[in-house]
C-alpha cells in the first residue's frame, strides 16, 4: 500500500537537515524544521517551509526529546519524520513511537533497528547468513582458560573487547600468550568501571585494517540492491574524516562479493530502507562484517555522485511503500567521488574542538564540486553540537581527477572564526601514499605531521609579511599602494606545490 508523503518533519539540525530539506523541495514535499533555542536563526531553520521550536540548548533538551519531536510533528500535521543521522536516528523506541503516532518513519522498522543495532545479535545473524565475521567469540568469555584456548586457535595478535563496549574502553591488543592474563584483568576492570559490565570478548586483531562499507537500499517488496562501497579508512580519533568511492583496493569481483554479503544480511533481517554494512578489510583484502548502520550515513553523497541517485529521495519513496524503480542491473557507477568533512577542529592540536563565531564563510563551487553545509557567517559554533560544519564532495572521471578537483575546491574554502579540518584534508590529498591508494586506518598516526600544516614556502612567508606590514600601515592611516593597470597571475594559481 502506498502512503504518499506530502509534508515531512526533519528531526535534526545542521548540514543533514539542510540536505533532507533540499530533497523535500525537489520532490514538492513541504518541509518542517525543528530547532533548539540556540538554533533559531540557523541555516536549516531558514531553509525549511515551516519551523517548530523545541526550546532548550543542549541536544538532551531538544533534538533528543522524542515526545517533543512527535508533538511537534502532530502540531505541524506532517505525514512523516526523517531522523537524519545521529540523535534519534538509530533509536528503536523513537522509530516505534513515530509509527504508533500514525506517522511514517523514514528509515527501517524498530524491529530491524533492534535486530541490527545490537552488536552481538548482528554478528550472530551475519554468521547465520554466511557473511564473514572476524574470527573470535560471539558470546562473552567464561574464563581465562577459555580466552587462552581461543586465542591459540585463532592466532595472536588478538583483540579483547568489552561486551558493553564503545569508544575503545575495555579494549586491549594482545600480542602473545604471556600478556594475555594481565590484559584480561585490565580490560575487565576498565569495562567494569566504564559500563558496569565486565564481560569481555576475544577476536582476531586485524592488522593494518581498512574500513570499507557497503551502501544498500531495500524496499518492502523483497528488492534489495547494493550501490557500491565507500572507503572510509582516513580517520582521526576513530572517526571518519575523508571518504571516497570506489575504494582504491576494491575490484569488481570483491565489490560483488561484499555487495552480495550485505544483501544476504539485510534480507535475513527483514530490513527495509537505506542502510550501510560496515566491513573491516585486512591486508590480504579479506573482508569481515563489523556492524550495520541503520540510517543514512554522513558520507552518503559520494555514493550519490557516482550512481546519480538521490538517496534521500529513494528513502522517502521506499518509506511511502513504493518498490525500487531500479534493480541491481540498473545500478551504474561512473567515475570517482571524494568527500572531505569540514569540522570545527584544530588539526594542529590533536583535532581538539574549535569554537567561536564564524566571521567569514566562503564555500567552494565550480565544476563537479558539491558542498553540503549547515552553517553561515555569523553563526556561533558551540560545544553543544557536532563539529561538522560542511562536507565538500568532488567528482572526477577517475581518482586522480577527483583528488585534483578536491584540492582546488579546498583552496577556495575560507572560514574565519574557528579552525577546521580543511588544511588537514589538503595535506592528505597531497600525501604520496594516499595518492597511491596505499593506506589503512592508521594513516593519521603514521603519516600526518601537524607541523607540516603551517610549513610555508619562503615566498609565502614574504607575501604574508608584506601583507601584515601593509595592513598595519593602512590601519595607522598610511595609504596603500594602488593598483595600476597590471596583469597578474591568478589568485589561486600559486597554491599548488
Amino acid at each position, binding site marked *: 500500500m502506498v502512503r504518499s508523503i506530502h509534508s515531512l518533519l526533519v528531526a535534526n539540525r545542521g548540514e543533514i537537515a539542510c540536505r533532507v530539506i533540499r530533497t523535500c523541495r525537489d520532490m514538492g514535499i513541504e518541509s518542517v524544521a525543528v530547532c533548539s533555542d540556540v538554533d533559531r536563526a540557523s541555516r536549516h531553520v531558514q531553509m525549511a517551509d515551516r519551523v517548530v521550536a523545541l526550546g532548550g540548548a543542549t541536544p538532551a533538551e531538544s533534538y533528543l526529546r522524542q515526545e517533543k519531536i512527535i508533538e511537534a510533528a502532530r502540531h505541524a500535521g506532517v505525514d512523516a519524520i526523517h531522523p537524519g543521522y545521529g540523535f534519534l536516528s538509530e533509536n528503536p523506541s523513537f522509530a516505534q513511537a513515530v509509527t504508533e503516532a500514525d506517522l511514517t518513519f523514514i528509515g527501517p522498522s524498530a524491529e530491524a533497528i533492534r535486530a541490527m543495532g545490537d552488536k552481538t545479535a548482528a554478528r550472530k545473524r551475519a554468521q547465520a547468513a554466511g557473511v564473514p565475521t572476524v574470527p573470535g567469540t560471539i558470546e562473552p568469555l567464561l574464563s581465562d582458560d577459555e580466552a587462552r584456548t581461543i586465542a591459540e586457535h585463532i592466532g595472536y595478535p588478538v583483540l579483547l573487547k568489552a561486551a558493553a563496549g564503545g569508544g575503545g574502553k575495555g579494549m586491549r591488543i594482545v600480542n602473545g600468550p604471556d600478556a594475555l592474563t594481565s590484559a584480561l584483568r585490565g580490560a575487565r576492570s576498565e569495562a567494569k568501571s566504564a559500563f558496569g559490565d565486565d564481560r569481555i570478548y576475544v577476536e582476531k586483531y586485524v592488522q593494518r585494517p581498512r574500513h570499507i562499507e557497503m551502501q544498500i537500499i531495500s524496499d518492502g517488496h523483497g528488492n534489495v540492491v547494493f550501490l557500491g562501497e565507500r572507503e572510509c579508512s582516513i580517520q582521526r580519533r576513530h572517526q571518519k574524516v575523508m571518504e571516497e568511492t570506489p575504494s582504491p583496493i576494491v575490484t569488481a569481483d570483491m565489490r560483488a562479493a561484499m555487495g552480495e554479503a550485505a544483501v544476504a544480511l539485510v534480507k535475513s533481517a527483514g530490513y527495509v530502507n537505506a542502510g550501510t554494512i560496515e566491513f573491516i578489510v585486512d591486508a590480504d583484502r579479506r573482508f569481515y562484517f563489523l556492524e550495520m548502520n541503520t540510517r543514512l550515513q554522513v558520507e552518503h553523497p559520494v555514493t550519490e555522485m557516482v550512481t546519480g541517485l538521490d538517496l534521500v529521495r529513494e528513502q522517502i519513496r521506499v518509506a511511502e511503500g513504493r518498490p525500487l524503480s531500479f534493480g541491481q542491473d540498473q545500478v551504474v557507477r561512473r567515475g570517482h567521488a571524494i568527500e572531505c568533512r569540514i569540522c570545527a577542529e584544530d588539526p*594542529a592540536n590533536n583535532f581538539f574542538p574549535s569554537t567561536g563565531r564564524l*566571521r*567569514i564563510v*566562503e564555500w567552494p563551487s565550480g565544476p563537479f564540486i558539491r558542498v553540503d553545509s549547515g552553517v553561515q557567517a555569523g553563526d556561533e559554533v558551540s560545544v553543544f553540537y557536532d563539529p561538522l560544519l560542511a562536507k565538500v564532495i568532488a567528482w572526477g572521471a577517475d581518482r586522480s581527477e577527483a583528488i585534483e578537483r578536491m584540492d582546488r575546491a*579546498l*583552496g577556495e*574554502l*575560507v572560514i*574565519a*572564526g574557528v579552525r577546521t579540518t*580543511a*588544511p588537514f584534508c*589538503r595535506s592528505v590529498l597531497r600525501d604520496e601514499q594516499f595518492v597511491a591508494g596505499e593506506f589503512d586506518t592508521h594513516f593519521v598516526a603514521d603519516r600526518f605531521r601537524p607541523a607540516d*600544516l*603551517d*610549513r*610555508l614556502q*619562503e*615566498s*609565502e*612567508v*614574504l*607575501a*604574508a*609579511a*608584506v*601583507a*601584515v*606590514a*601593509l*595592513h*598595519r*600601515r*593602512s590601519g595607522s592611516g*598610511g*595609504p*596603500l*599602494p*594602488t*593598483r595600476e593597470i*597590471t596583469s*597578474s*597571475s*591568478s*589568485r*589561486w*594559481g*600559486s*597554491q599548488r606545490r
Partner: protein
Amino acid sequence: MGQPTTVTASLRPHEYLVTLNGVQVRVYCPPNGKIEVDGREVQAILDLSAMGNGSVELDGKRYHIMLDPVDQKGRECTVLVNGRRASGTLDDQRSLLRQGMDHAQGPDTAPLTVKAPMPGLVIKILVQPGQEVPRGEGLLILEAMKMENEMKADRTGVVDSIMVAEGSAVEMGQPLIRIRFLG
C-alpha cells in the same frame, strides 16, 4: 665563541620587522615610495575586504590572504597565506623600542650589539663594563620620540663595552652597548 656580530635590526619610519613562523622579514613601505623587503625593492599590492579576506600580490605573483582583524592584537599577528597559518609578531620603530632591545640576534652565545632603534638622546647609562646583567636588566635610557625608553638586556650576559656616553645624541642604528653572553 663566535665573532662579534653586527646586527642591523634598527628600523626606519614606515619600516616593520615581521617575524612569522620563526622567520624574520623586514618590510619597508614608505608613503608613495618603493616597498622594500629585506632591502630588496619589490612590487606589492594588498587587496583586502573589510573582513580581512583577499590577496597580496608580490612581484607579480598572487597569494590568498586572510588577515582576520580579531587575530591582530598589539604586536601579535596571524595571517593565513594560501590557507596555511603564519603567526608571530610585527614590530615598528616604537614597539621595538618598547621591547627594549634589538630583536635580531645571532646564535645564542654570540656577543650582541645593542643599537639605537631610532635617533635619540642617551639620558642615563645603567651598567658598567664587566658587569653581569641578568635578562630583563635595564642597560640605558634613551630619550626618543619625546619618551624615555629603557633598553633592557634580552638575555643574561656580561657588559663587554659601552660605546656611548651619557648625554650624547645617537643616530638610528648606532651601536650603544655590546654584551657577551655566557655560553
